[in-house]
C-alpha cells in the first residue's frame, strides 16, 4: 500500500481498507497498514463508521428485547451503577474502578486459545485447599472501614457492612462455591504473587485475594481480571473488572465484577493492561492464573 500522500487523502487501496474496516473488520496486518495513515485514517474511520451506522438506522427496528435478556441487562445496569458509588465509601485504590470509554480491542488477537493458560498449567500443580479466617487480614486488606466504637451521638449505630474479607470468608464457607488457587506466571511482574478466588455461581458474586502483587500507578497501568467460562468461546474470557494495588499493600481483596453471566467458571487470570483496561487482552503480561478443578 502506498504511504500517506501530501494531500492527506488516502488512495483507493486505503479507502478499500477503511470500507472493509466498517463492514467486516480488518486483519492485524491490514490494521497496521491503515494505522500508518494516523489521524487521516482516524478521520475517515469515524466518517465511515457514522455513515454505516446511519444506514443501519434506515432499516426497520423490528425486534423487542427478550424478557430474559432484559432482566440480565437490568442486572448489569444495577451492577454498573453500583460500581460508580463514591470511592469515599471504600478504601482508596482498591476497588475495581469504572472503566474508561471503550478501549480499542486488538483485532485478531484471540487465536492463542487456551495456550497461554496451558503454558502455565504446571504452576497449578501446587493447587491446595485453602482456608482463610475472616480475622487474619492485614492492615492493607481492601475493605470498607471496619466497625468503629459507637459514636456518642448515635444511640443506635447502623449495622456495619461486612468487609470484603468477611464476605470472601462467608462465600468460601458455602459448599457450592467455586474455589480456585491462583499461581504466579513466569512474567517478571508476577514474582512472588499468590492468591485465590471464590466464586458463587448462584449469585454471580465472587472475590479474588492476592498477596505479593506489585503496587501499580493507575495512570500508567491497571490490573484486569478475566474469567474463563467453559460455556463460552474459550478465546474470549469475560472481563472481571480492572483494579489497583495501593502502595504498601501486602494483601488485596477484590470483588469480581463480571461483565457477563458466568455459566461454567473454568479459570481465572489477571493481566496488566493500560489504564481503563481492554476489551480483549493481548496477554503480554499475565501475572496470575488459576483453573477450577
Amino acid at each position, binding site marked *: 500500500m502506498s504511504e500517506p500522500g501530501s494531500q492527506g487523502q488516502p488512495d*483507493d487501496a486505503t*479507502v*478499500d481498507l477503511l*470500507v*472493509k474496516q*466498517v*463492514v*467486516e*473488520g480488518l486483519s492485524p496486518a491490514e490494521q497496521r497498514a491503515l494505522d500508518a495513515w494516523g489521524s487521516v485514517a482516524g478521520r475517515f474511520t469515524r*466518517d*465511515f*463508521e*457514522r*455513515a*454505516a*451506522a*446511519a*444506514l*443501519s*438506522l*434506515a*432499516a*426497520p*427496528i*423490528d*425486534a*423487542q*428485547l*427478550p424478557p*430474559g*435478556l*432484559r432482566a*440480565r*441487562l*437490568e442486572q*448489569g*445496569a*444495577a451492577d*454498573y*451503577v453500583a460500581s*460508580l458509588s463514591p470511592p469515599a465509601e471504600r478504601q482508596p485504590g482498591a476497588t475495581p474502578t*469504572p*472503566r*474508561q*470509554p*471503550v478501549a480499542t*480491542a486488538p*483485532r*485478531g488477537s*484471540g487465536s492463542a486459545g487456551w495456550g497461554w493458560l496451558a503454558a502455565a498449567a504446571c504452576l497449578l500443580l501446587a493447587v491446595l485447599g485453602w482456608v482463610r479466617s475472616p480475622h487474619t487480614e492485614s492492615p492493607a486488606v481492601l475493605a470498607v472501614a471496619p466497625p468503629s466504637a459507637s459514636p456518642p451521638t448515635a444511640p443506635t449505630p447502623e449495622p456495619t457492612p461486612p468487609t470484603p474479607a468477611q464476605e470472601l470468608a462467608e462465600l468460601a464457607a458455602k459448599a457450592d462455591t467455586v474455589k480456585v488457587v491462583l499461581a504466579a506466571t513466569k512474567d517478571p511482574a508476577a514474582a512472588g504473587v499468590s492468591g485465590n478466588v471464590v466464586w458463587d455461581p448462584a449469585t454471580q458474586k465472587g472475590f479474588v485475594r492476592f498477596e505479593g502483587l506489585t503496587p501499580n500507578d493507575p495512570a500508567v497501568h491497571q490490573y484486569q481480571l478475566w474469567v474463563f467460562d467453559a460455556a*463460552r*468461546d474459550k*478465546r*474470549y474470557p469475560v472481563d472481571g473488572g480492572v483494579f489497583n494495588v495501593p502502595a504498601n499493600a501486602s494483601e488485596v481483596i477484590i470483588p469480581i465484577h463480571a*461483565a*457477563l*453471566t458466568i455459566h461454567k467458571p473454568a479459570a481465572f487470570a489477571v493481566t496488566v493492561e493500560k489504564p481503563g483496561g481492554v*476489551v*480483549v487482552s493481548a496477554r503480554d503480561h499475565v501475572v496470575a492464573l488459576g483453573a477450577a478443578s
Partner: protein
Amino acid sequence: MSPSVLQRIASGEAAAVRECIDEYGALVWSLARRLSRTPSDAEDATQEIFLDIWRSASRFDATQGSDKVFIAMIARRRLIDRLRKTTNEPPMDPVEALETVAWSDPGTASEVSIEAEQATRALNELRPEQRQVLELGLLHGLSQSEIAARLGMPLGTVKSFMRRGLIKLREFLNVDAESVSERV
C-alpha cells in the same frame, strides 16, 4: 433542550443507565440479531454493547450526531469485532434475514432519525446493484467475499460499489453537517 439519556449517564445519573435499556434496547437488539452468528451470540453481544454504551456515554457529543447514531456506531463496532473473531459461518438465519430486512421506505425513514433520512437519500442516488451490495454488507453482515459469491460479482466490483456508496453517504452526511453548522 433537556439532556439526552447519554448525557444524563455521563453526568452520573443512575436512573438514566436503566432508561438507556428502555430507549435503545430494541435498536441494539435488532442490530445484534442481524450481525451475530447465533441467538446466544446476539444476547452476549447485546450485554457487551450496553456496557460499552454506559462507559462511553461521556464521549457523546450532540453536535457531532444523534444519540442513535452514536449508539449504532458502538454497537456495530462491537458486533463486527465479534464477527471477525468467530468462525466463517454466516450470521444467523441469513436467508430469512435477506428476505425480510431492507432499508426503510424513504418516506418513513425520517421518523427514525435525521441521519437515517440522509442515508436513505444517499441510497436513492445509487444504482440498484450498488445499493444491494451495501445492504448485504451493512445490514446482513456479509463480508465482501461473501457478497461477491452470493451475487456472482467480481470481488473488485463489490469493493468498488462499497467504496463509492460509503463515500457518497459520507459526503451527504458531511454536507448536511456543514450546512447545519453554517446555520448555527
